[in-house]
């Protein structure tokens, strides 16, 4: 496999402090390789966004990172821990190395500034020496790249449609040619036609520019189609991680299985829709042991007492994947 570009090691993120802290992300280990699309799925509240914001240190108060490392491998030079950077270094790292596209583009764009301003101020912040002219040329180029004509440069966000705004965001994310692009549900507000169009474009750009993507959504079918590898989160932990096709064909964790059988398929024979019984766990009062066990149809004795570790499963194709389930005890923990 390709070399890693971003390694998350034992990341822990809490909301709040002390006893009342909510542990939203726990001991997450995840590696993003160069050029790949890593999908992150899991139902609402499972900690996907927290993970994304946590590793970039963008989490708003009362979020705190209580432990872990986020090791970034730049194209040149030694790897370093993003969590150890000073504020100034972090500002320089942001967007130049890792850019983020959020869910609602309307909310991601400052409503009172023209999109040209918002595009160029990144350039100004990261490369103050760049001339006014070349900044605007670059912005124009990015817009063209995402399929928006350059004459919309002077438009305000509200003058663009939802799809166009989302594309502006994608263009903005790529303007500094970062190594990693994190996309947190970038298309949920859009309808399917637009969604496909934008994702298609993104994949194409990734092939041309060679950046890696962390793609967050809870729509598994979308992930299966668009990403190389998928990690599934539940209750703040990664419960399974495998190549997209592998997961789709043969999910090991009962939760992943449940997710995959929760949505109706449009094509092919009508599948049985099993769904997942119960409702998502309350992060403040997590059940002991495996957090999924109260909803798990296959729960058995160790599940309610011990937390399973993410590790390579004891299955024949266990090589490229890992799972945290007592049904498939880890042969060797990841991380």
């Amino acid at each position, binding site marked *: 496999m390709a070399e890693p570009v971003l390694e998350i*090691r*034992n990341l*822990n*993120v809490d909301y709040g*402090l002390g006893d009342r802290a909510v*542990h939203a992300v*726990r*001991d997450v280990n995840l590696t993003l390789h160069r050029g790949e699309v890593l999908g992150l799925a899991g139902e609402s509240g499972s900690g996907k966004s927290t993970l994304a*914001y*946590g590793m970039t*240190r*963008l*989490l*708003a*108060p*009362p*979020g*705190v*990172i*209580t*432990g*872990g*490392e986020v090791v970034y491998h730049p194209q040149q030079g030694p790897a370093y*821990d993003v*969590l*150890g950077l000073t*504020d100034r270094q*972090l500002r320089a790292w942001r967007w130049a190395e890792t850019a983020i596209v959020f869910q609602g583009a309307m909310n991601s764009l400052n409503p009172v500034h023209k999109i040209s301003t918002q595009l160029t101020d990144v350039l100004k912040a990261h490369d103050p020496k760049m001339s006014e002219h070349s900044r605007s040329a670059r912005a124009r180029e990015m817009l063209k790249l995402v399929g928006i004509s350059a004459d919309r440069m002077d438009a305000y966000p509200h003058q663009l449609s939802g799809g166009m705004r989302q594309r502006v965001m994608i263009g903005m994310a790529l303007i500094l040619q970062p190594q990693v692009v994190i996309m947190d549900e970038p298309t949920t507000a859009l309808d399917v036609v637009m969604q496909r169009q934008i994702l298609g474009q993104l994949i194409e750009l990734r092939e041309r520019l060679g950046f890696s993507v962390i793609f967050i959504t809870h729509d598994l079918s979308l992930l299966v189609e668009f990403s190389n590898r998928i990690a599934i989160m539940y209750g703040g932990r990664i419960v399974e991680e495998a190549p997209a096709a592998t997961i789709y064909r043969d999910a090991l964790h009962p939760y992943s299985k449940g997710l995959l059988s929760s949505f109706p398929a449009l094509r092919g024979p*009508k599948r*049985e*829709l*099993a*769904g997942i*019984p*119960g*409702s998502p766990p*309350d992060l403040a*009062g997590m059940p002991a042991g495996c957090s999924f066990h*109260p909803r798990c149809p*296959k729960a*058995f*004795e*160790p599940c309610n007492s*011990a*937390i*399973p*570790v993410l590790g390579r499963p004891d299955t024949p194709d266990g090589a490229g994947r890992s799972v945290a389930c*007592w*049904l498939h*005890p880890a042969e060797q*923990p990841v*991380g």
Partner: protein
Amino acid sequence: MTIPTSSIEQVIPGQGSMAQPEAAKPSRAKRQRFLFVRNKKAATGLVILGVYVLIAIIGPWIAPYDPSARSNDLVQGPSAAHWFGTTHLGQDVFSQILEGTRSVMLVGFLAGAIATTLSVLIGVTAGYLGGKMDDSLSVLTNVVLVIPAVPLMIIITSVLNNASDTLVALVIGLTSWSWNARVLRAQTLSLRRRDFVEASRASGERTWRIIVFELMPNLTAVIASGFVGTVIFAVLSEITLAFIGVVSNSGWNWGTILFWAQGQQALGQDAWWWFVPAGLAIALLGTSLSLINFGIDEFVSPRLRSAGKTKLKTASGGTVRMRIGFTPVLSNSATPHTHAKVVATPVMREAK
């Protein structure tokens, strides 16, 4: 149709799936509404206000002297006999303050209640009904808003002979509802299209029921903070009116004290004890009301709550501040978190 019925069985019947484990959600149901009392600011405000209310009720009884009674101690400084000193007629300032509290509180709260009622009636109705009704009520609101309140109060009170506290409260109430009405109208406009209002309309509720039972409870906090704001305004107005001597009521309030003090140039005679306490009493009352208002604001919008602790200790002993955009890192070692127990021994798997 080949939808497997099993799925229904699995999801619906009995308590199988959707039933919640009982303990999962503690029932902090109704108490949530009074949670704002737990806010430190609101609690402080309420305590101070409580003292004022108490004085308003029992003040005249605990006053050491008749506040109007003359004595031979003319313009005496604070002493054991006269805590806040005396006036040019030898009246006891402390007793005047105690006695005056009632009038101030009465006018403040009555005017606040009148103005709030009017603003709710006009603002919410305008906001909910819209159209012509909204237009005419908005013009009314704006006209009242545009006419300067204090001069208007002066004019109206001068029409009334011997305005009692109630009448003064009425005048203040009638002239100061418009700002809140505007705020409420805007709030209602944003609520009106909310799904739950539409939903109760769709389920066939009558208009007045929607306004009273669906909209108003959601406006409680806004109404409450409007009320508190109007009370402050009313208190200041009453005191201003009394201070410039246009209110003709004969009783004591803090404005009357200030009026006498200023008429007798208390500060010019260095009789600060005569002038200062009433002003401080007003300021403290105003502060307590503002604190309550803070509490309400923060209750409505939790974002406004100051983060309890903003300075954090990191594992290495340094401190970091909680701030937007730079999440504090308390420890960046990659050791697994303590609460994840790694069980080394593989557990027997159930036969498939």
